[in-house]
C-alpha cells in the first residue's frame, strides 16, 4: 500500500511537471502580449508600450520566461497579475477561491445526495414511470443549455417571484460597515461545513453496524443535534447575519447547479446498482427474507457506492471548471470568472496561475480517489 502511494505520488509529480510545461507553452503560444492593449490609446506616447513590456517582463526570451515560471511555481510564487497589476496571482486566487469552494462544494454534495438517492430508487424499480420521468428529466437537465437555464431560474424565482436576490453573493446594504470581510465569513463557513461533514461521516460509521430502524433514529438525531449546535454558535457569533445573507444568495445558484448535475450521479448509481444486484450475496440477502429496503440500502447501495464516490471526488475537482458559466450568470466572482477574464484580457500570469491551480486540484483529487479506491475496495490490490 505504502509503496503504491509513493509510486502514485511520484507519477503525479511528473505529470504536474508536464502539465506545467504544456500550460506555459500553450498560453504563451498566443500571439502578442498585454502591452498591446495599453498601446491602443491614440493619445499615449509610443514609449508607453515599451515601458509596459519592460514592467511585465514580456520582452524576455521565451525559454527564460519558462525557466522563471517553473522555478516560481515550485516555490509557490505564481507571479504578478497583469490586469490587476501589481497584485500577485496567489493573492487573487486566495481572494476568489473560498467563494468558489463554498458554492460548488455545497452544490456538489447536494447534487450527490440527490443523485444517489434517486439512482437507488430507479435502479430498484426498473421500467416504472419513475424511471422514465427521472431519466428523461435528469438527462434533459443534464444536457440543458446551462446559461439559458440559469437565467430562467433567475427570471422565475428572483425576478417574477422575488424569493431570492438577483445574482451576487451578498447585499451591500447588509454588509455596510460589517465587522468582518466576506472572505473570512466564507472561510468560517467552509470550516463549519468540514466539521459538520466529519460529524456526519462519524455518525454513519458508528451506526452502520446497528439495526436499520435504530440506525436511522441515531443518525437523524445526532445530525440534528450537531446542526442545532452549529446554528447556535453562528447566531451567537455576531456575524451570523452576514453568513445568513450569503446563504440566501447561495440558494438559487446551488439549486441550479444541483438540477443540472444530479443526473450524472443518478445514472451512474443506477448502472452501478444494476451490476451489483446480480451478485450472489444480494440473492442470498433476499433469500434470507430481509426487507427490500434493507437489501437495497445495506447490500446493494453500499457496494454500488464505490464508483460513485470516486466520480464524486472527480466532480469536486471539476467544480471550478463548471463554474465558468454559473459564476458569470449569477455574478459570483470566483475562479471560473477569473479564468475567463484573465484569458480575455491576455493576463497570462493570472490565466496560467488559475490553470495550474485547477490542475493541481484535479491531480490531488486523482490521488485521493486512487487511495480511497485502494482502501475501500478489497479486490483492488496493487
Amino acid at each position, binding site marked *: 500500500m505504502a509503496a503504491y502511494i509513493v509510486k502514485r505520488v511520484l507519477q503525479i509529480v511528473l505529470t504536474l511537471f508536464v502539465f506545467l510545461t504544456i500550460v506555459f507553452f500553450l498560453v504563451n503560444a*498566443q*500571439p*502578442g502580449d*498585454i502591452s*498591446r*492593449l*495599453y*498601446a*491602443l*490609446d*491614440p*493619445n*499615449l*506616447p*509610443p*514609449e*508607453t508600450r515599451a*515601458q*509596459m513590456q*519592460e*514592467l511585465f517582463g514580456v520582452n524576455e526570451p521565451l525559454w527564460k520566461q519558462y525557466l522563471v515560471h517553473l522555478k516560481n511555481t515550485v516555490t509557490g510564487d505564481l507571479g*504578478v497579475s*497583469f*490586469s*490587476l*497589476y*501589481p*497584485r500577485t496571482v496567489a493573492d487573487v486566487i486566495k*481572494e*476568489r477561491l473560498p*467563494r468558489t469552494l463554498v458554492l460548488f462544494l455545497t452544490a456538489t454534495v447536494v447534487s450527490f445526495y440527490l443523485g444517489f438517492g434517486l439512482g437507488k430508487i430507479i435502479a430498484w424499480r426498473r421500467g416504472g414511470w419513475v424511471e422514465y420521468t427521472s431519466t428523461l428529466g435528469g438527462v434533459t437537465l443534464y444536457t440543458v443549455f446551462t446559461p439559458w437555464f440559469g*437565467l430562467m431560474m*433567475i*427570471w422565475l424565482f*428572483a*425576478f417574477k417571484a*422575488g424569493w431570492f436576490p*438577483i*445574482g*451576487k*453573493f*451578498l447585499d*451591500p*446594504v447588509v*454588509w*455596510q*460597515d460589517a465587522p468582518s*470581510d*466576506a472572505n473570512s465569513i466564507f472561510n468560517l463557513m467552509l470550516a463549519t461545513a468540514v466539521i459538520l461533514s466529519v460529524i456526519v461521516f462519524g455518525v454513519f460509521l458508528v451506526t452502520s453496524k446497528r439495526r436499520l430502524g435504530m440506525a436511522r433514529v441515531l443518525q437523524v438525531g445526532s445530525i440534528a443535534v450537531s446542526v442545532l449546535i452549529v446554528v447556535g454558535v453562528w447566531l451567537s457569533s455576531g456575524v451570523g447575519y452576514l453568513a445568513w445573507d450569503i446563504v440566501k444568495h447561495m440558494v438559487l445558484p446551488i439549486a441550479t447547479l444541483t438540477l443540472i448535475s444530479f443526473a450524472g450521479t443518478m445514472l451512474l448509481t443506477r448502472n452501478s446498482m444494476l451490476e451489483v444486484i446480480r451478485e450472489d450475496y444480494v440473492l442470498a440477502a433476499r433469500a434470507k427474507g430481509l426487507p427490500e429496503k434493507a437489501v437495497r440500502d445495506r447490500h446493494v447501495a453500499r457496494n454500488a457506492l464505490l464508483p460513485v464516490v470516486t466520480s464524486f471526488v472527480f466532480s469536486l475537482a471539476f467544480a471550478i471548471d463548471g463554474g465558468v458559466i454559473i*459564476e*458569470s*450568470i*449569477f*455574478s*459570483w*466572482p470566483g475562479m471560473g*470568472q477569473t479564468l475567463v477574464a484573465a484569458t*480575455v484580457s*491576455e493576463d497570462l500570469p493570472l490565466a496560467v496561475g488559475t490553470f495550474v491551480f485547477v490542475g493541481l486540484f484535479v491531480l490531488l483529487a486523482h490521488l485521493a480517489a486512487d487511495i480511497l479506491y485502494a482502501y475501500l475496495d478489497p479486490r483492488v490490490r496493487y
Partner: protein
Amino acid sequence: MVRKLSKRAVILVVGFAMAMAAMDCGAEAPPPTERIVTVPVEVEKVVEVERVVTVPVEVEKIVEVERVVEVTPAATEAPAATPAAPAGPAIYKMGLFEDPISRNTWNYLGGPAGSVWTGYVIGGYSTSLYGYSPQRFDWVPAVADGLPTPLAKETVDGTEFWTTEVAIKQGVEWSDGEPLTADDFVFTVSTVRELNLGSNWASLVHPAFVDRAEALDDHRLKIYFKSTDADGNAQTPGLSIWQFGLAFMPILPEHYWAPVVEEARKAGEVPQQIEALFAHVPDGEPTAGGLEYSQWEPGAFFENTAVPDYYSMGTMINEYANGAYEAINERMGYTEVYYGDPTGDKVLELEVGPHFESEIFSIYGNQDSAILALTKGDIDFLFNPLGLEKGFLDRVRQTADLEVVENLDNGVFYLGFNTRKPPMDNKAFRQAVATVIDKEFVTRTILQDTAIPMYAMVPEGNAFWYNDETAKIGQGLGRGERIAAAVELLKGAGFTYEKEPEVSEDGAFVVNGGEGLRMPDGSEVPELELIAPSAGYDPLRSTFAIWIERWLNDLGIPTKARLLGFNLIVEKLFSETVDKDLDMWILGWGFTIFPNYLENIFHSRHAPENEDGGVNWGGYANPEFDDLAFGLLSETTIEGAREKAYQMQALLADDLPYVTLFTTPKIDVFRPVKVEFPYTSVLGGMAQAQGLQHVVLIK
C-alpha cells in the same frame, strides 16, 4: 421627458449644451467669434515673438449674488422643491460590471489599472488645477485661483523655457485637514518625471515638453516647459500639452505619498520602484476631490463616503445661454466668472455636492442581472459603457419608474485601408468603396437605429470641433446610383472591367456583380481581406463587415470578410508585417474632446514602421495632412486649433484613409424616484461623466 424626444432632438439638445457651440443659442447670444476671443488661453503670434501678448480676459468679480440656499435642478417645474431630509442616510446606489482594479491613483493613471471601472470609482478622489465645467466642458479653474499667466519665454541658466505661473486657491484642504499647497503639485509632477511613469501620466505630464514645476510660495506655482525637442528643434507646448494636459493632472497629497514614494525608490531598478509604488494600498489616503474611500468587498461592492469639508462643496454653478460661466462659493469666499457676462437665460444651475453621505457601487456579472436589479430598485443608476441594446431598452422603457436618457458618444467605428498597398493606395478606389457603403441602410434598417451614421472623423456631438462642411460621399444615394457612381470613379482612375455590375430595373439591387476588375496598371484586383470583430464580440461591426463584403463583391472587388475576436484583430494590427499583410479592417476609437487624436491616428510618423511608431496602421502618409497635424499640436489658440481641425476633417473626408461608418448613442438609465440629476444630456453620456456623483440629488 427626454425619452420622448426623437434622436434628432437629442442631438440638438446636446449640440445646444456643448461647451463651445454658440450656434444654437437664442438671438441674444453674441456671435460665436466674439465669445471665442475671450477664451482664456488666447494668445497672438506664437513662434517668433519673445513675449507672448494676451488679450486681456474679462473677469469681473461679482460682488452681490443672491444666494439660493437649496437649488432645484435646472429646468424642473417644481417650485423650489428642497430635497427633504431623507429617512435614512442618503446613499447613491450604482451598478458596475467589474471591480475597480486598484485604489491607487498612481496605478490607475500609470498602469493596467486604468480601466473605466476604476475611473468611475476613484475618479472622485482627486482634483486638478483646471477642469471641465459640468455639462458644457468649459475650461475652468478647479483648485487654481484664476487663470494662468500666458506662456512666456524665459532663459534660466542658459536654457530657454516656456513658463507660466498659476495661483492655487487659499484654504483648500485635504480630507485630513492638511492644506493643499503648490508643493503637492510639484511633488506629483516630479514623481511622475523621476519614475518616468507611462500611460496616462505620460500624456498628462508629457515627457518631451514638461520640464519641471516650482513652488514660488505655498499657493503659487511656476511651470517650465522645454522650448526645444530632443533634436534641438523649437517647440511650443500647445493646448494639448498644457491646458488640456498638465492642467488636468490629478494632484496627490505629498504628506501622505512622499514617504511611500521614498520607500518605493529604494527598490532596485525603476520598473521595480514603479511596481512598489503601484502595489501600495493607500489606506487612509487623504483626498481633495470630495469623496473618500470607505469599504471594498471585491466582487460585491465598493463604497465611498462624502467629505463634508470638500472645498467645492456648496458651490453654486451657473451656466448661461450667452456662454458665461459662473461659480460662487460662499464658504470659501470666491466667485469665478468666465466667458462673458453672467446675465440672461441660465441653461444650467446647480449646487456642487456630493449631496449624499455615501455611495455604493454594486458589481454585476452581466447586463441581464444588472438591468433586473435596476428594475427591481436595488440600484438607481447603472454604469453601462457597453451600451444598451434594443431589447434592454424596450424592457427599461416598459418599467414605469425608470428614465432613459440618450446622448451622443464621442467615438467612431470605421473601415480602415492599408494605403501602402494597391488598390487601397488609390484615392478613387477608396472613394468608390465609400460610395457603395450605405451607412444609412445598415444603421436605420438593419440595426434599427441603434447606431448613427458618421461622415467626419470628429463626432457630431463634439459640436465645437466638428466640421459639418466635409464631403459626405454617397449620402442619400440608392443602390443603383451608388453602383453607377462607384463604377464611374473607378473607371475615371483607370480601372477597367471585363463585365460591369448589372443593376435591377428598379435600381434596388445588383443582379450580376462586376467581374474582371483590373487596376490602372493592368493587373487584376487581388482578393482583399476585410478583418472585423466577430458577431460574438460586436454584432454591430460584424453586421457592417458582412454587408460591406457583399457590396464590394457586387462592385467586382473580390473581398472576403474575416471575423475575429478583438485580441486577434489587435494582434494583426500590431504585427511586424502589418504593412504587407493588412488590406482593410473595421474597428473603433473613443475620443477626447480636444481632437489631437487626429495627429496620433493619421500623421505618417505614427505608422508602425516609422521611428515614432503608433497606431497609423494603414500607413497613411499625406504631407499636406502631416503639416496640418503637426501645426495642431503646437497651436496655442483655440481658434487656430479649430481652424486646423476643420481643415484636417475636410481633407480626411475626401482622401479617406478611413471610411467612418457609425457611432452609437450612449444610453443611460436611472430611477427618477430615487435620484435627480441637474442635467442629463452630456456628450459621451452620463456614465462618462462618472454618473454625476458630485451633483446628483438623492431623494
